């Protein structure tokens, strides 16, 4: 497939999550033109998929959507969604990115987001946006506050029945769309490719995803979100309102046997947050957090942890070693209680949430001359004085791309990366408004 077109911007931001959007907006605010390249069909990253966020407990969507809308409407920001970076290299003063536009099979210009197609489509597919706990269709809009609000077809599950095409008021469905490659040149780039959660299948001792009521923390976020799969917290085994929920911390991080020796940094706080939210929605439920060290290090975090204790969330020091199905949908855990009279305990909970390790969302591999640290996250060269600096001149990094990071730290770092990028542009004679 030949390269179709070449786009030119002052800056390229790789990743349309909160760090990428923040970096893009900061660059655009200084009148530099920015392209945001996002691999998913919507911008918003992990944050738009969360319920509420610590330590303020404000609704994640309410904080993310304004930034998403600001980026979508900013005249200096171009959003390129459902695009995959193939390579990024420096050629003289320019960075050249080869990008693949994945086919949506829906014309982005024509689609008006009415979802008629989705309602008509006969195929159900586990909805990854809802942690697989409910279904979407083979043609679908990713989620309710997705930007762009446009449909796409998942060809793996499409049966080409043509119903979507028939019902679309704008003839936007196009089964014949093809992969398109294009190049994008920019003077500077910000890598904001974020993180992925370690797959549940990797954790043999915790049932490898085979126990319905053992879920990932991201699935729990969906259960807690107001527009989640069940619209309330129910256990996935049979729809029961759980009486007791357990959180297993360091379920894959700080664990050399899992190949993730580092701390995933956000799990303590989100587990505390989820427990707090549960104590609101299920006031009678027993909530237990099994932990090694509670790492409530950020502003207002320790007080948040203390509040959770005061609210009756149970904190048990000890790493859960083994999880197995109990009777009637319950989940049985084994851990060592460190109390003198403790020892190995076998306890049952209705629902178990795993704080799985965070892994890099993207690794450059051969696509680009950036290397990674021992933790596989993007390597930074001056972690103290210039945390956004990478090995490649003019390429900066922000957020979880250079290691697990919470939202606040990611946003701040995105500002720093954007500043470095602006400075880099200014030094090369790129003019902002003035």
């Amino acid at each position: 497939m030949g390269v179709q077109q070449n786009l030119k911007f002052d800056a390229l931001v790789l990743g349309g999550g909160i760090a990428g959007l923040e970096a893009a907006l900061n660059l655009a605010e200084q009148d530099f033109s920015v392209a945001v390249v996002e691999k998913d069909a919507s911008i918003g990253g992990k944050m738009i998929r969360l319920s509420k966020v610590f330590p303020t407990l404000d609704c994640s969507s309410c904080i993310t959507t304004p930034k998403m809308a600001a980026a979508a409407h900013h005249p200096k920001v171009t959003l390129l969604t459902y695009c995959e970076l193939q390579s990024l290299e420096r050629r003289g003063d320019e960075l050249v990115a080869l990008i693949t536009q994945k086919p949506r099979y829906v014309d982005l210009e024509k689609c008006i987001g009415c979802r008629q197609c989705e309602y008509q489509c006969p195929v159900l597919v586990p909805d990854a946006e809802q942690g697989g706990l409910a279904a979407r269709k083979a043609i679908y809009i990713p989620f309710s506050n997705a930007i762009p609000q446009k449909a796409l077809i998942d060809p793996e599950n499409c049966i080409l029945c043509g119903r979507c095409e028939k019902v679309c008021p704008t003839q936007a469905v196009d089964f014949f769309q093809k992969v398109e490659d294009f190049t994008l040149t920019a003077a500077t780039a910000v890598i904001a490719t974020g993180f992925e959660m370690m797959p549940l299948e990797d954790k043999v001792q915790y049932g490898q995803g085979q126990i319905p009521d053992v879920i990932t923390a991201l699935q729990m976020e969906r259960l807690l979100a107001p527009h989640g799969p069940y619209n309330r917290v129910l256990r996935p085994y049979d729809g029961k309102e759980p009486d007791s929920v357990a959180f297993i911390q360091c379920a894959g991080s700080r664990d050399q046997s899992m190949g993730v020796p580092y701390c995933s940094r956000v799990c303590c706080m989100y587990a505390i947050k989820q427990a707090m939210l549960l104590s609101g929605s299920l006031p009678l439920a027993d909530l237990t957090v099994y932990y090694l060290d509670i790492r409530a290090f950020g502003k207002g975090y320790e007080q948040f942890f203390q509040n959770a204790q005061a609210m009756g969330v149970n904190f048990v020091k000890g790493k859960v070693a083994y999880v197995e199905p109990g009777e009637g949908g319950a989940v049985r855990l084994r851990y060592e209680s460190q109390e003198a009279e403790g020892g190995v305990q076998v306890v049952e909970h209705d629902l178990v949430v795993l704080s799985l390790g965070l892994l890099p969302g993207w690794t450059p591999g051969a696509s680009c001359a950036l290397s990674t640290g021992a933790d596989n996250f993007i390597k930074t060269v001056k972690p103290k004085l210039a945390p956004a600096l990478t090995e490649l001149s003019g390429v900066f990094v922000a957020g979880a791309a250079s290691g697990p990071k919470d939202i606040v730290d990611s946003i701040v770092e995105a500002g720093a990366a954007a500043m470095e990028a602006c400075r880099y542009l200014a030094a090369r004679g790129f003019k902002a408004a003035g």
Partner: protein
Amino acid sequence: MEAEKYAGKILILATETCAYPGADAVGQGHQSYPANTYLLRVKDPVLFPEKFYLDCFAKGVAGIIIMSCGVESPYPGSYEALARRIDRVYPLMKAKGLDIRRLRLTAICTVCTRAFVNEVRQMHDLVSELGPPGRE
């Protein structure tokens, strides 16, 4: 079918950062609610003086739901000022013989779809029960 059942108009003052997008989310979810509801987009309902509410009732509006951002308001202190104002509106309503339940102050966020529908349903039931303003 109760064709003659009174469905007085309900005014919803919805903040542009919280409740208005919340109402949009209800729409996206195709969650039906009574149609006698009129959303006005506002930056912050702290803008409206006591008189505004009384005038609305005088014009025939049967119920008003203020959907604010609550303490998460982008204008620090506005929610508290708003709450104090509404507290002053209630005695004025009583003085005019208006059931104070016709005016309700709530906080609705961008994804509070269930809360939105609940609030609307409750107010709808209330105004159906009370009839036109001033006749309670």
